[in-house]
């Protein structure tokens, strides 16, 4: 095979495998008899996701970004183009190779013929050149070449690989749990759409360019719009789908408008280009950034862009909500971290403020409104908003650390990555149990949890552990995660914000304990025992086990998160 295509194949193996898996599931669905339940097909799809998770982990282990020969050839060609273009202008390439603001893309491994200094010089020269001729498109650099484009537009680093692992894991768990829930006749389509949404999220975290990012965002979003309105007969599900579609499209519009403003200003939507270019304050840069933040804020359901979340979570099918509230949110945070730290280091002092306000608002609104919720799914929605607030503390710390102490930068990203992992795992479990209770009782109000202790002791125990983990109680995963999140804020001097977060997480423990009280303290009217089923049981056991394991033995997970964070920051 052509070296170029084999390069693309290895770079996007998880995505390609997922697409193939999704198409296979849909194809098998066609040949299966109409009356079959397709539960087995869902389980097979779930284990397909597990295989994709292994592939992503493989990519994570391969560590350094792959830069094959063809990239090297391209880069060499670029050098020559520069020299030809610059010489007549009377400018020589005088780039400082130690400049830390240079894009990571140009950092080739040492064994490459092109030295790092030369590669850096290329980018620096491009920046200077573009300064002279703003319309200069990337094509002039030879970016039309598919192999180089793949290398240029996609990060393919450990940071992306780690999140691919997370999304594949989330899809695996959600598909396993979805076997337990009625998704009417369309089980295969459900699995297919979920898998394609996962592909979208993977493209998002992998992209280095706002336009590619938008592609991934839309791929995921369109699948999720359809999934949200899955229960055709249920008005709530319809409401949920329409609400998500309308508000989601609006947020996407904001995002793409922001990206185009930035393109208008800087002639590029590539993050490293923006990172280099935004050195000068431009009139539309701030507006563009603000619009991007609106898009991301919607994605992660941070206040004041959270209003869709409770309604959507309440009406949409449980397994879809479990995915939406975790993987989709994690993707939002991953790209937020990448875009802000790579694309807008020069505007840090501006966006840090915005993120800080969003963090405080999310924590306050999420936790205080959750107090009044009787519906456990809505409660989890507001708790998710609050969790987004805690996570934004780390994002803010990334900005502040970038301004002053670069040594703290890594710790802040590590904290965010670790928290996203454990939050995803715990929240999927919590939603799954809420869904099971909803199915076995009349609804998913608080009182439907009463007597769960006798109806399903293991579910009761699992729900308690997961909620306490979300509340940050040791020795569970959430405690370790929150500790590092808050730490990242405190080392940047954000005492008040962190105190607010810590105090409000006590409030969160109040409403989590209200559920625990129903489970353990109060007797229930409904005493019919709940059968969980083997498949969902495996998923839940795995979730609870991981939550406990990360809590009591956080070191390996912390090391993995640290390495992931380093790969984001080595540019």
């Amino acid at each position, binding site marked *: 095979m052509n070296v170029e295509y084999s390069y693309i194949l290895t770079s996007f193996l998880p995505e390609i495998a997922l697409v193939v898996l999704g198409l296979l599931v849909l194809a098998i669905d066609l040949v299966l008899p109409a009356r079959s339940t397709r539960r087995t097909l869902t389980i097979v799809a779930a284990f397909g996701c597990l295989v994709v998770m292994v592939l992503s982990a493989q990519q994570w282990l391969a560590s350094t970004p792959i830069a094959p020969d063809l990239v090297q050839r391209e880069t060499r060609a670029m050098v020559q183009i520069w020299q030809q273009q610059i010489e007549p202008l009377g400018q020589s390439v005088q780039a400082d190779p130690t400049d830390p603001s240079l894009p990571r893309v140009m950092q080739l491994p040492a064994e490459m013929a092109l030295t790092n200094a030369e590669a850096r010089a290329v980018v620096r020269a491009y920046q200077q050149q573009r300064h002279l001729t703003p319309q200069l498109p990337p094509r002039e650099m030879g970016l039309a070449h598919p192999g180089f484009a793949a290398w240029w537009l996609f990060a393919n680093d450990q940071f992306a690989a780690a999140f691919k692992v997370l999304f594949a894991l989330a899809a695996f768990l959600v598909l396993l749990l979805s076997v337990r829930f009625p998704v009417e006749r369309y089980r295969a389509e459900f699995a297919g759409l979920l898998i394609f949404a996962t592909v979208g999220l993977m493209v998002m975290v992998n992209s280095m360019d706002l336009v590619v990012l938008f592609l991934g965002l839309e791929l995921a979003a369109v699948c999720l719009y359809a999934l949200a309105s899955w229960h055709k007969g249920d008005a709530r599900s319809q409401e949920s789908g329409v609400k998500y579609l309308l508000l989601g499209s609006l947020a996407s519009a904001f995002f793409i408008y922001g990206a185009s403003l930035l393109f208008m200003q800087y002639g590029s939507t590539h993050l490293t280009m923006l990172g280099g270019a935004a050195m000068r304050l431009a009139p539309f840069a701030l507006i563009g950034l603000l619009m991007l933040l609106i898009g991301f804020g919607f994605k992660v359901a941070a206040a004041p862009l959270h209003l869709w979340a409770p309604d959507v979570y309440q009406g949409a099918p449980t397994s879809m909500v479990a995915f939406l509230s975790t993987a989709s949110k994690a993707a939002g945070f991953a790209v937020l971290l990448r875009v802000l730290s790579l694309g807008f280091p020069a505007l840090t002092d501006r966006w840090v403020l915005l993120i800080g306000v969003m963090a405080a608002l999310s924590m306050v609104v999420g936790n205080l409104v959750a107090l009044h919720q009787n519906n456990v799914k809505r409660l989890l929605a507001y708790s998710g908003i609050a969790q987004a607030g805690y996570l934004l503390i780390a994002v803010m710390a990334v900005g502040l650390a970038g301004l002053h102490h670069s040594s703290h930068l890594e*710790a802040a990203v590590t904290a965010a990555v670790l928290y996203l992992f454990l939050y995803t795992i715990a929240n999927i479990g919590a939603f799954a149990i809420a869904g099971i209770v909803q199915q076995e009782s009349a609804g998913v109000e608080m009182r439907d949890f009463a007597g769960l202790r006798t109806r399903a002791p293991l579910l009761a125990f699992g729900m308690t552990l997961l909620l*306490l983990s979300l509340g940050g*109680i*040791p*020795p569970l995963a959430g*405690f370790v995660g929150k*500790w590092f999140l*808050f*730490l990242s*804020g*405190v*080392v940047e*001097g954000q*005492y008040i914000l*962190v*105190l607010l977060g*810590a*105090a409000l*997480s*006590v409030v969160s*423990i*109040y409403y989590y*304990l209200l559920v*625990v*009280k129903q489970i*353990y*303290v109060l007797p229930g009217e409904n005493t019919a025992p709940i059968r969980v089923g083997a498949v969902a049981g495996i998923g839940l056991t795995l979730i609870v086990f991981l939550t406990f394991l990360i809590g009591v033995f*956080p*070191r390996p997970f*912390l*090391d993995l998160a640290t390495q992931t964070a380093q790969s984001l920051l080595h540019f």
Partner: protein
Amino acid sequence: MTLTQFLTQYYALAWLVLVPFVASLVLMALPRRWALAMRLIAATAAGITVIISALLAWDYWTLVRDGIVATNGTGAFESIWHYQLQPQMLRFGAISFHLAADGASVAMVVLTALTIFAGVFASWNLQERTKEYLALLLLLVAGVFGVFVCVDLFFFFLFYEIAVLPMYLLIGIWGTGQKEYSAMKLTLMLLMGSAFIIVGFLALYAKGGSFDLFALVQASRNGAFDGEFQRWFFLAFYLGFGVLAGIFPFHTWSPDGHASAPTATSMLHAGVLMKLGGFGLLRVALPLLPEGLQYWHWLIAIVAAWNIVYGAFAAMGQRDLKYVIAYSSVSHLGMVMLGIAAGTVTAVNGAVFQMFAHGIMTALFFALVGLVYAKAHTRDIDAMGGLAKVAPGLAVAFTIAGLSSVGLPGTGGFVAEFLVFMGAFVTKPLVAVFAALGIVITSVYVLRLLRSVFFGPLNTKLAAMADARTTEWVALGVTCVVILAVGVWPYPIIEIISSAVQPVVGLVGPLR
């Protein structure tokens, strides 16, 4: 091999935490029917911690006696720590599982072990969901042990939270009265305190560059924490730990919580858990933020004196036995804070001694109240009377506890109060005089309580009441003996405590 080497080499401190924790897990795994086996396992686990803590106490006492740990004020902060343990495996980033014990730890560990031992026997006859009850109780104790022996702030906080949370279920499920309200109030107020503590710990790391207490003390000596930082974060720690120590006006969780809690839970909570507050101040805030105490000691002293008097008055007005004891705890814990605020070696010794003495005494009190309630089915003081005639054993034990509470010489309470006031009169005579009012009021309500519950004419409804049984006598006997023993011969325990207090007071220096 000396005993010290033996205890260090075989991880005595880690076992203190692990034994209750593992026992708790084992209990969870047992089938529901084996109630007796569960009680025996819990009692064995508690017994093992008693043995380990006794060994630690004996060994630390020999260290003090032989002058290896200095008690004459010359010992540096680092020299008083023994039995250190810091496994590489549990080290990540700036955090490591670092265990070590000084005199104060040893005293508190002994207190905890005795209380849980007595507590298991006091709840021997509990029938409802025995498994979960004992498991949660042991989990809580594992957390408490962890706090007392941990010198890494991450694990300190982790254990601190583990010690608080099981309380919610213990009170919520097995409690009496308005248990759900009390459980939630207690949990939320304590966790709100810990929100201040976690910010404080993280800030200490941000400025001092470590979570390890020893490294932080070194950083503090080198001036890593400036004056303003010390003042603000000392206040944060005072509020955070103070909630647990029941300082006015954050004490309101305590009476409700104690009144609703089942017997062994009250014993542990008032006996041990409330001590975590004073202990935290002594362990973290005083050595690291000495400037903070210099700045706030008047506030602390005045609040403490008010605690003493207010708690005593409030206790006087109660009709429910448990509320009386709960408010008396608020009053007595004011004594701990007064001792710390006085800032002299004698007074702080007294404060730590008060933690110990009050812990044992109040455990005995709550055990007794639990027994009386179980047998008389009421806690209303007015509905009782003359119980000494039908339950002389309970009456004797209650009198011992009461007299210790009043501070009669020959009981642990006397030693503690005497030391605290001796120290406090030197630096804050007016506050001390005001606080001393509390002692008078205490004697009023304790003696009235004794009279109306145990003496006087026998309430005929209670004529059939039984005295304490064998297993219950274990709980009462252990605590009574310890109260009298430390009252009669307090010297070793004062020396042990003093070895830990002197370096800390030395770091703070004389109060301005």
